[in-house]
């Protein structure tokens, strides 16, 4: 009788890392950062798509309404925002190519006998070379985009 009264309730919690766990911590591997950026740019692109639909849908209210909304975004600051969006799009696309290749088992190699120090397949040469080539491809695309956007305001 007395025991039942004295019995305390013990609380437990499913300690999920949640969305904050996307980034992990500062000592995580390179792919974890790419994963985090891929998620963030993906969400950013969805927001951009919504904004894009709102702006272009102003055409429904006549030509003057469409021209008015375009005059609002026809300035260098908006174009810088567009550059950021394009950078996110390029990262998302280029990293997406890498993920499609690696996630279907290409360019990864085969399991091997574990001998200390242990080998991690993502830290071997081929996946790292893939990341490097994607960085180069991304920068080339980014320079093209920057040049196209600068052409409007500088030249």
């Amino acid at each position, binding site marked *: 009788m007395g025991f039942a009264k004295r019995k*305390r309730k*013990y*609380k*437990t*919690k*499913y*300690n*999920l*890392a*949640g*969305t904050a*766990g*996307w980034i*992990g*911590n*500062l*000592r*995580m*591997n*390179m*792919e*974890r950062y790419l*994963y985090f950026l*891929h*998620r963030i740019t993906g969400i950013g692109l969805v927001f951009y798509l919504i904004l894009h639909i709102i702006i272009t849908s102003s055409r429904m209210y006549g030509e003057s309404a469409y021209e008015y909304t375009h005059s609002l975004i026809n300035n260098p600051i908006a174009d810088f925002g567009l550059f950021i969006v394009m950078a996110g799009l390029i990262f998302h696309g280029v990293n997406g190519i890498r*993920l499609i290749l*690696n*996630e*279907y*088992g*290409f360019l*990864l*190699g085969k*399991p*091997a*006998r*574990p001998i*200390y*120090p*242990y*080998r*991690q*397949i*993502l830290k071997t040469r081929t996946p790292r070379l893939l990341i490097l080539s994607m960085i180069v491809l991304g920068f080339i695309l980014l320079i093209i985009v920057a040049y196209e956007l600068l052409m409007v305001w500088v030249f």
Partner: protein
Amino acid sequence: METIKNVKFRIKRWIPEDGRFRVDTFEVPVFKGMTVLEGLIYIKENLDPSLSFRRSCRMATCGICGIVINGKPMLACSTQILHLQSDTITLEPLKNLPLVKDLVVDHTPFFEKQKTIKPYIIRKNDLDEYWNPTREYKQTPREVEEYLQFSYCLTCALCYAACPTSGTNKDYLGPQALMNAYRFIADNRDEGLLLRLEIVDSPDGCWGCHLAGSCSDVCPKGVDPALAIQILRKMVVEKDLGYLEERKGAQLVPPLPYVEGVEKVEAPKFTVRGAKKKAEEIQTKYLS
């Protein structure tokens, strides 16, 4: 042992009575070669006997002392304090698992998920041999290497704690369970390929992985679950395209030739009470 320096242990403890975390700080004298687990034992023996943590083998074989050290899931027994190169060490219980007390977590969901992928050899034809084994199956060293890496798993749940998908999706099987599914698929004695691919072919299975690679990064035994999951995915696509067919399991080795003067060694008897009876029950159930 000669003390080199004092290191502060900041321990994020789960207090089950209050239902919240509490951070306690302890100062531990550190000698050369001292592990985090030894530091915890020092705290329990000298500073705070109420501190709870799990440990058993203290040599990275049992995999129960997994905790988050400075934000990264690690085994406390195989991490040396001086190698961390910091005067303050932050310790937390493993993420993505239910908390019990202080640094102790409940591994039940983790093991339940491992069970769902049927972590045992499945045979479909020679069930009589399966339940009453007389000889071993043929396996070349190359065939062993296909799954050997993945059979080194300790089930320490470090990969599960590091996985970002496990952090947001409670039903996600997790790197360990998916890796284990591949371990049995890659085994040439196994005949459950299509059965296991059906289990892992879901958003909570192998398609939940986004190749963050943290599972392989934290693994203390070099098991590389990230590689296993990507191969599993490739297999699922191959199965859907019709390239993959059920493989016939390995055959038995031929019986040894009779040598005169050498007596045949008897197979070991069932050591668990009632095991033979249960095996026979299951056998009759399967054969009928």
